[in-house]
């Protein structure tokens, strides 16, 4: 071994020592979290990693993802040459040539990917320093971080080409071949052995620097992103909030008030962030200039984790330097979230920023009783009258009297329980929707009944505000009532009830087949039980987060609209839809900071010049109705999908509006 070889060995060992020490530290940080990483169904997890990770499916949902795809695969391809170069640095003359055709193929790919990666890097530089889309704007430190990585990769590739120019390898290498004459004209010589050695050293040193730099930088995601996809937590899939055990022996603290109270998956999550900002771009709170950015939430937690961990690793009970709330996550950040889940949908590595906030909300509400006064009033009302307005529970079924809809107490021998929800029972406007749904079901000959005064709030708002205690009481009460009547199938006109009954009631022993009214109505149309007449109106449909993004119901409401008019899509639609602003208990809180989310959405709606706006959620209807009014476009009719269908089916409007 030469002296140079020996030096390289020392560098390799040192770089790996630093790298693995840091990785070990990060693993220990993650292990400070609760529970263990979810690992059931390993084959499904591998598939996720293959498709979403190696296939880059989530990354490729945006055009910028193409650049990432090239850099990602370029990394693997070029690592082949890097490895060869490192070994050759220690044992001069070493090569992978014995691999034969594969060697030829890899040399070819390296040549091509070198150029592609350089192109992607150029675009990355352009986006970060010239174009600067909002989602990529970051603090100076983070920007420098990005720059260092881009420069390191670029230098690496330049050195690679220089080496290949000086010392060609078998393969179809048009890029190297094209560069060679230019290189020769600049340096005067093609194959100087000293030149090769210089570039070889440059390449190896940069590679090792990169190795050391990765786990200290945002490029940590190289190590954590794929595991993060693998260890996906099914309990939190699609915005679900697992049921907290409130009666656990010795449990003194509920929700998240310290970073170590998060699960290990939550902590792995925050280390996987690459600062791409797609979550931020999708966030309605951020879009309306509120202090919340899901990206900053995750980065804040990441920095906090790494800051607190050294002390915690020495002593688990060490007092934190900063309080998770309000030092790391501020009050106005915490409460700005509408739980629309756009951030979680947007993340290419399935980080869940929203669920991090819910945990802190639970601690604020359960441990401190600390949340917006307006929301306290709403929840107190839910406690006494089972609805957030505090209207008499006794009057819950009043809308149904004139329509001859029976309660299950009167006749439990029905196919469907129509779970009306609070808004459908009390909100003057949404009661019209309730009546439209009831009339359509009657028209189609569906046998259904309601719970009337026995129905209570499902607890969606309570749960998402963080009042797990109240949410559990409400869920249990509803499940007991429904099971008491032997309910099997449920139809509801509220996406929030829908999500709770379908995804959370099973935790309380309530297992039902749940459909949203648009799903049932679309099915009834298909079966020919409803025969709408096509109308001329151009209808714009606004997707409800809890129906669409949460539960994937996109097509049923559209089918119902298409049967009664022409459908026009908004720019942000389906899983990319923009929240109305009322989810996560925000319905019951004042929106005091920044612009109003419902007005922003209403502007987007007005822009596409609809003749009619359709919604499928009581919150959306209230918010969009207010938004259209603020934008002075109250003249645009706003209707629920069921109302459109009722009109198209010739169900007299008076029937629906007056219930007479």
């Amino acid at each position: 071994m030469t002296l140079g070889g020996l030096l390289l060995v020392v560098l390799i060992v040192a770089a790996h020592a630093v790298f693995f020490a840091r990785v070990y530290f990060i693993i220990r940080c993650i292990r400070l979290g609760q529970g263990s990483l979810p690992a059931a169904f390993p084959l499904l997890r591998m598939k996720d990693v293959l498709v979403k990770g190696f296939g880059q499916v989530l990354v490729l949902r945006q055009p910028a993802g193409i650049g990432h795809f090239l850099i990602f695969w370029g990394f693997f391809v070029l690592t082949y040459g890097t490895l060869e170069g490192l070994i050759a640095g220690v044992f001069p003359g070493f090569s992978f040539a014995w691999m034969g055709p594969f060697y030829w193929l890899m040399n070819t790919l390296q040549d091509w990917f070198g150029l592609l990666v350089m192109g992607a890097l150029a675009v990355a530089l352009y986006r970060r320093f010239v174009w600067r889309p909002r989602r990529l704007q970051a603090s100076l430190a983070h920007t420098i971080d990005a720059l260092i990585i881009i420069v390191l990769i670029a230098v690496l590739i330049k050195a690679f080409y220089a080496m290949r120019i000086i010392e060609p390898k078998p393969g179809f290498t048009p890029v190297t071949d094209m560069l060679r004459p230019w290189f020769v004209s600049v340096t005067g010589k093609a194959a100087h052995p000293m030149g090769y050695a210089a570039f070889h050293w440059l390449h190896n040193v940069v590679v090792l620097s990169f190795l050391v730099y990765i786990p200290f930088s945002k490029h940590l995601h190289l190590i954590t992103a794929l595991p993060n996809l693998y260890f996906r937590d099914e309990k939190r899939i699609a915005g679900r909030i697992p049921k907290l055990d409130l009666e656990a022996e010795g449990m003194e603290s509920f929700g998240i008030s310290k970073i170590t109270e998060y699960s290990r998956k939550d902590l792995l999550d925050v280390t996987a962030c690459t600062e791409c900002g797609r979550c931020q771009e999708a966030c309605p709170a951020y879009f309306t200039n509120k202090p919340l950015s899901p990206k900053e939430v995750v980065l804040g937690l990441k920095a906090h984790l790494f800051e607190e961990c050294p002390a915690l690793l020495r002593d688990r009970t060490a007092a934190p330097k900063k309080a998770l709330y309000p030092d790391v996550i501020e009050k106005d950040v915490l409460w700005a979230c509408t739980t629309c889940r756009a951030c979680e949908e947007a993340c290419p590595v399935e980080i869940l920023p929203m669920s991090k906030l819910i945990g802190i909300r639970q601690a604020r509400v359960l441990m401190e009783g600390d949340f917006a006064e307006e929301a306290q009033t709403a929840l107190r009302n839910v406690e006494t009258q089972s609805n957030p307005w505090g209207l008499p529970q006794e009057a819950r079924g009043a809308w149904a009297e004139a329509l001859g809809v029976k309660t299950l107490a009167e006749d439990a021998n029905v196919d469907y329980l129509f779970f009306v929800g609070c808004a459908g029972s009390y909100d003057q406007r949404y009661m019209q929707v309730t009546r439209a749904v009831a009339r359509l079901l009657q028209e189609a000959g569906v046998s259904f009944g309601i719970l009337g005064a026995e129905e209570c709030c499902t607890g969606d708002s309570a749960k998402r505000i963080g009042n797990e205690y109240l949410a559990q009481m409400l869920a249990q009460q509803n499940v007991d009532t429904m099971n008491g009547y032997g309910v099997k199938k449920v139809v509801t006109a509220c996406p929030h009830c829908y999500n709770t009954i379908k995804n959370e009631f099973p935790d309380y022993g309530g297992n039902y087949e749940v459909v949203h009214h648009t799903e049932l109505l679309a099915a009834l149309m298909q079966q020919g039980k409803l025969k709408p007449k096509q109308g001329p109106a151009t209808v714009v449909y606004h997707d409800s987060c809890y129906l669409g993004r949460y539960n994937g119901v996109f097509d049923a409401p559209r089918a119902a609209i298409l049967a009664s008019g022409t459908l026009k899509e908004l720019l942000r639609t389906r899983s990319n839809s923009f929240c109305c602003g009322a989810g996560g208990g925000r319905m019951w809180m004042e929106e005091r900071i920044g612009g109003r989310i419902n007005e922003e959405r209403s502007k987007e709606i007005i822009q596409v010049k609809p003749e009619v706006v359709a919604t499928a959620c009581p919150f959306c209807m209230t918010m969009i109705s207010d938004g259209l009014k603020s934008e002075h476009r109250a003249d645009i009719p706003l209707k629920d999908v069921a109302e459109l269908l009722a009109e198209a089916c010739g169900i007299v409007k008076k029937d629906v509006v007056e219930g007479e």
Partner: protein
Amino acid sequence: MKIAVLVKRVPDTASVFKIAVDGKSVETANLKYVMSPYDEHAVEEAIKLKEKNGGEVIIVSVGPSEAKEIIRSGLAMGADSGLLITGAEALSPRGLAKVLAAALKTLAPDVIFAGKQAVDDDAAQVPERVAELLDMPHASVITRFECLGASVVVDREIEGGQYTLELPLPALLTTQKGINTPRYPTLPNIMKAKKKEIREMSVGELGLASEALAAGCTVEAFTLPRQERLRKVLEGESIQKVQELVRILRETEKVL
């Protein structure tokens, strides 16, 4: 410092009220009950005082056995124990005050808080009567409370202004909205409240003569507020409609 809070279990005012067949009472079958909202302010003020000066807070109520739930909600806010006197809920304010005064005498509190009135019959009499029976200074409708040790300073709301009063202890005070924001109970406190003691005693145990509890006045009849609508649509030019509206409000309905 011993702090007592008088609370009352009342129907939620959002309930649908129906007059019972006797015409002198309200049907209670479908009513939802809550702690009278002004009493929540009293509980909050008592707990704040305890947090500042130490001591104990006892929630005292007269009502049926179910009133324990209302006491329990006060305990969940942070009060220490409860006392429920049963068998006296049908009494008039005069009798109620005697019952409460007798019970409070055994507790001997330094400060008594109560809501300025209960939102069921809105009599606004019981706390003041209790104070008189106990020969205590009292201030009603307070919007600020400060304890100076042996005395307290309060702001008392009056029409178009306020009094600032200093009262020696022991004293009784009734709270008005605006004095504080009643806290939202935390889960650990709700759990603890389930284990806190609520002493239940029947009115008989107080040894009061039955004639002492006789009503000062009795209910003759209950009627619901009129809720009819005129359903009148005014026609014509805006100016005429306004003139007509003002005329109706002034001359026919006599509300202007």
